[in-house]
Every structure is written in structure tokens, then in C-alpha cells.
């Protein structure tokens, strides 16, 4: 497959590993911010290839995991109403709100459709005009432009039955939040390539300057990730802290101005509650007043339940990289992909689910 298989090549991988091993390594902690990177690290067993000096710490970059339960409750409340259709991305369906998840709401009669693009929700709204179609719009800077475009299309077509719950979150404030926390010390960061393809990487330069930490904008294939680790480790051992772009085939310093413009025209920056992390200033996107007639929260006023998360669930510490999933007493016992307690157990990008799928039985693999 063009531009994919090349980045999963065993020989190329071994060359990068050799390079990493040739560095005068010391113990270091490198955080991969994005959940897709965590998933790839687990799927390809990359930690098995790395020297023990390099510890990978999993970051908060799974949009499904950080969507707070109150938003899921609001979505389910609307989905259960007569003549409502909730359009959601697939992996959101298993995340528990304060009561149930969307799969169970579906079994209770809610009309919930899995979509692959926000334009699928527009298509549903066009064909089922007698019903209110609510797009559950989650995601980082990567999905925000497409979701914003859906509102622009609905505006242009005067679609009166299309609405959105906007639960977008922004990556740069979350990375800063983690770096400024006293709980964790990091030596390097793999910045999320897909987010940077939209935002550019000036924000990474700010972070590497302010926190004196090397940042490597990194892609998602095994070779990308290993190269990202090499470039980061190289800086750590030589005491440098610049931003380097490993993912040049997709990311420029300026990013995608058109996508940035679309986001700005439809959304405005707001404070946002992150599941597991708490409230982070300027880290969310709400629908602007000009487009408030599409804002399902304002138009329908869905019920918001207050909820306390399971106090034994350490999702917050996992999302900040302070702890690993296996350190949670619920992991693999009370909390599993069939019955997730914390959101990182739900999406395949969530660190707990990735551990459960690929590393739970790590002991088995030794000596074989």
C-alpha cells in the first residue's frame, strides 16, 4: 500500500533501532501524545524493540476517552426522545456516561446511527426531514474542520433539522497542562502528527522553548514512531530541546490555513472539562452565537447529570502519563472492554484498552 507498507518495513525498522541503540542513552521518559500512536505502539509491539532506558508514557490524545460523561448523558437524553436521531462516531458508543452507554440506549430503543463522516449526518438529515438529527461532534483539531463544515453545509442548504453537540477539545492546552503539572516529569514529547497537519507546529516550538523539552512531530506508522523516538532521544542525550518535524509528508510549520479558518468561523474557544483530567482553560470548542440555531445543547436543553467517577479509576493519571494501566486495581478485573469503568478502556486508542488487547498477557510472551 503506497505510503503505508513502506513505514511498516522490518529492515527499515531495524536500522532505526540500531541508531537508537548507538546513542549514549540514559533513562528517559518520552510521551506519545496521541492515542493512535499508543495503539500502534501496542499493535506492533514496539516497546519490545526499544532499549530499557527508553520508557514510553501514554498521553491524553484519545478524543473518545476524554469526552466527559455529562456530554454523553446529554447525547443519550436527546437520542431517547421521540423523533430524534443521534449520529455518532462508532467508538463513542461503548463509553459509559453517568448511567448507560449509547449501545445500551440503542437496545432501549434510541435511534443511534454510526457515522464515518459528519457529512453522513447531513445525508441523514436530508433524507429524514421529519426527524431532528443530532451530530455528536467530538474530536481534536483533526475532526473539528469536518464537523464545522457540516454546519456550513447545513446553513447553506437551510437544513432545519440538523443539530450538533460540540464536544471538541484542543491538544496544545492539554499538553501544557500536563507539562506544568507537578505530578510528572517528561524528557521528550512525540507531538500528534494528525493534529499538527491542521494546526502546524508553532505551538510545539513554543512548548519546547518554554518547558525546555524536545518535541518531535511524529506520524503513526511503526517507522514514524521509532524515528520520532530516535530524533527525540538524540536531543535528550545532547541536552537540546527543539521542535523537529518527523512527519514532513503531512505536516508543515503553518499547518492547514483553510481548515483553521473553517474552525474559527464556526467555533469559539472555551473552557472544557476533560474526562479524567478536569477542567482546562481554553481547551474546548463551542459553537459560535452566529450558528447557535445548530447548537443542540442550546436548542433542546438536554438534561445534564452530575456524576462522580469511580474513585478507584485512575483514568486521569493514565491520561497524564503518571501511571500505567496495569497499576490500576480495576484493570482487567472490574474494568474490561466489555464493562469499561474508565473511558481509556473503551476506544482502541485508549491506553487501557490498548494494554488490555495487546499487553495484558505480556508474561506469556516472555521466553518464547
Amino acid at each position, binding site marked *: 500500500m503506497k505510503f503505508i507498507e513502506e513505514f511498516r518495513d522490518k529492515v527499515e*525498522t531495524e536500522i532505526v533501532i540500531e541508531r537508537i541503540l548507538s546513542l549514549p542513552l540514559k533513562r528517559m521518559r518520552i510521551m506519545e501524545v496521541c492515542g493512535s500512536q499508543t495503539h500502534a505502539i501496542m499493535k506492533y509491539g514496539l516497546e519490545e524493540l526499544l532499549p530499557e532506558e527508553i520508557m514510553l508514557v501514554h498521553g491524553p490524545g484519545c478524543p473518545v476517552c476524554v469526552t466527559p460523561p455529562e456530554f454523553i448523558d446529554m447525547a443519550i437524553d436527546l437520542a431517547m426522545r421521540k423523533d430524534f436521531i443521534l449520529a455518532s462516531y462508532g*467508538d463513542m458508543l461503548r463509553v459509559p456516561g453517568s448511567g448507560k452507554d449509547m449501545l445500551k440506549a440503542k437496545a432501549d430503543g434510541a435511534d443511534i446511527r454510526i457515522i464515518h463522516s459528519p457529512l453522513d449526518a447531513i445525508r441523514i438529515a436530508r433524507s429524514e426531514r421529519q426527524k431532528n438529527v443530532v451530530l455528536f461532534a467530538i474530536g481534536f483539531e483533526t475532526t473539528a474542520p469536518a464537523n464545522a463544515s457540516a454546519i456550513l453545509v447545513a446553513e447553506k442548504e437551510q437544513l432545519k433539522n440538523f443539530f450538533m453537540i460540540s464536544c471538541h477539545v484542543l491538544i496544545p492546552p492539554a499538553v501544557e497542562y500536563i507539562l506544568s503539572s507537578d505530578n510528572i516529569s517528561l524528557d521528550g514529547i512525540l507531538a500528534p502528527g494528525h493534529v499538527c497537519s491542521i494546526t502546524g507546529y508553532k505551538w510545539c516550538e513554543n512548548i519546547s522553548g518554554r518547558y525546555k523539552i524536545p518535541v518531535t512531530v511524529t506520524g503513526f506508522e511503526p517507522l514514524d514512531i521509532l524515528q520520532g523516538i530516535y530524533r527525540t532521544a538524540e536531543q535528550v542525550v545532547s541536552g537540546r530541546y527543539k521542535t523537529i518535524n518527523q512527519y514532513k509528508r503531512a505536516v508543515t510549520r503553518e499547518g492547514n490555513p483553510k481548515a483553521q479558518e473553517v474552525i474559527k468561523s464556526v467555533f469559539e474557544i472555551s473552557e472544557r472539562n476533560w474526562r479524567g483530567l478536569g477542567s482546562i482553560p481554553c481547551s474546548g470548542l463551542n459553537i459560535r452565537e452566529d450558528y447557535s440555531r445548530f447548537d443542540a445543547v442550546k436548542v433542546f436543553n438536554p438534561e445534564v447529570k452530575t456524576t462522580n467517577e*469511580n474513585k478507584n479509576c485512575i483514568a486521569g493519571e493514565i491520561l497524564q502519563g503518571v501511571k500505567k494501566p496495569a497499576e490500576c486495581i480495576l484493570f482487567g478485573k472490574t474494568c474490561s472492554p466489555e464493562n469499561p469503568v474508565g473511558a481509556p478502556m473503551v476506544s482502541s486508542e485508549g491506553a487501557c484498552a490498548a494494554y488490555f488487547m495487546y499487553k495484558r498477557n505480556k508474561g*506469556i510472551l516472555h521466553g518464547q
Partner: protein
Amino acid sequence: MASDEITGISCPVPQVSNEKITLGHGSGGLLTHELITKIFLKEFDNDYLNMSHDGAVFISGTQKLAFTTDTFVVNPLFFPGGNIGDLAVNGTVNDLAMCGAVPMFLSAGFIIEEGFSQEDLKKIVHSMKAAAVNCGVSIITGDTKVVEKGKGDKLFINTSGIGLVQDGIDISPKRIAPGDKIILSGSIADHGIAVLAARENLNFRTEVHSDTAAVHDIINKLLQVCKDVHVLRDPTRGGVAGTLNELARSGQVSIFIDEVRVKVKEEVNSACEILGFDPLYVANEGKFICILPGSEAEEALKVIRSFKYGNDAEIIGDVRAENPGRVILHTRLGTKRVLEMLSGDQLPRIC
């Protein structure tokens, strides 16, 4: 162990699982397994059912017979490469073949939703006839029910089948033994991706065709040449990974497979990349897994590859004694990981 035994507190996120059936219970993953064990096996408990095979094999007089049933609810009814009709015939024929039987007779039950097009029904029944002729089976009994509009989804078909098992053939997951080799008859995930791509709500076009096909003729020949085949299984729901997990559990062995030996067509792989699916868990309808003693594997591979629907067959792994119940994948990078059974369906990832 209950949650409060571990934590000393009750979980404030109320879990209402197991109260109602969710789609995940039909996925072929852990939830399906749980449903079958806790509800069906508990009540129907008998030696045949407890074999956990694709069908039951029993003795009648001097003959060994295989009996199986399957219900088809595919949506959409027509998809690239086939329709629910040929799927319903091929699926049951394959289940009989997986018992080591020569398929003989089929039944067909139809649940039709009020308002369904007669023209479409004719097309589907015609496909069933063509598939039955191709497989050398006759559909000798049937049933028709019509349900009110909204009480069914256009058309559901159930087929049951009966076949004759030749002397000396004993196919059972219990026979899997360390040292056995695992053969996969071709590339994977075609059916699941073709059906998904054909769904109305998925604006997603691929050139992928379902692999729906009957493989009984390959199996007939294979069993003539290699009588000591231990297990045959078609990796339908739950895909290759789901099927191997079931086999590792029921055979109490571990299964090692080599990622680079499992073929996935480029277009199928691309679709999986876009959707965030692992092809190892996507359904197939014209493929089978054969587990047999290592000494017979090369000969078996030659036989399977001599057929049109088996020419991409490959030895993908082997059976070992340690860590019974586990399936372990050697990745293309030389690392290892456990291939777990999924709990429910794979859900498309957001990014």
C-alpha cells in the same frame, strides 16, 4: 470475583450489562460466547452441543451424519459478490463441510417483512437454487412466514443441512495437538468489508467483493488425501482471530500465527485502514482454517491450492502446548502480541 470484593466499594458508574441483548451479543466475540454459555448451553446441555463445533456429528444406524443450522440476516441483501440467498446455501454447506461431511440436503426457512419486493425474492431464491446445484445439494423442505412491516428487516433466511461423514474422518477441536500446523485457505476480510461498503449509510466505495463460496469440494478432496485432519472451521463472524481463539480454548492449546503469512488484499487492507478495523477480526464467507499434523501440512496445502477458491492458501502458524487458550501473533516487525477475542463488534474509529 465481584467488583466490591476487589475494591471494597461499589462502582458509582452503574453498569446495566446483561439486562438486554445488544448488537455485540451477535458479533461472534466474547459477548456471543457468554450468551451461548450462560443461556443456551445451560439449558440445552448435551454432549453434541458441548463439542462447540459448527455442527453436530452423530451416528444413525451404521452411518455417521452431520447436522447444522445457520440464520442469515445480512444487510444489505444484495452486495458485491453475492446476496443473502447464495450466502445462506454456501454458509450451511460450508458448516457441513467443516464437520468433514459431504453435504446432502438443506432446509430453507424464510421470514419476510410485509411489503418486500417479490422481484427481489425471486432473484434471491434463484441464487439459492444456483448455489444448491453448484454444491450438489437439494433443498427438500422449507417454511415461509410473513411479519408486519417494521417487525423484520426485509428478509431473514434460515438454512439447516444434513450431510454424510465418511468412515475414518474425525473432525473435532478436541483433537488439536501441539505440533499441528494451521492452514488458511486464502486472503481474509473480503466479505465483511464488501458488506460494510455496500451499506446505504456508508458513503464508501471499494472494489471489494464478498468471498461467498462453497468450499465443500476442496474439503472432499482434502479428506481423501489427508484423513487425519484434526479441525476444519470457517472463520465467519469474529474473523480469523475470533475463530482461532475459540479453537485454542476448546482444544486447550496455544496457537501461534505469523502476520506476514496471512494474506489481505490491498483494497481490503485500505478499507480496514480507513475504518480502523483489524482484518483479522473481519468476517469471511468462503474461507476455511484447517488444522492437521505437521507431517501432512505440505501435502494438504498442495491439494487446497489446486482449487480456485484455495489457490492463495498458506500455512500461517502452528499449535503449541504452553499457555493453553491463547493465540499469539508474530508481527511483521518480529515482535509478538496476544490476539485477544473481541468483546463485541469492531467499531469504526474516529481517527
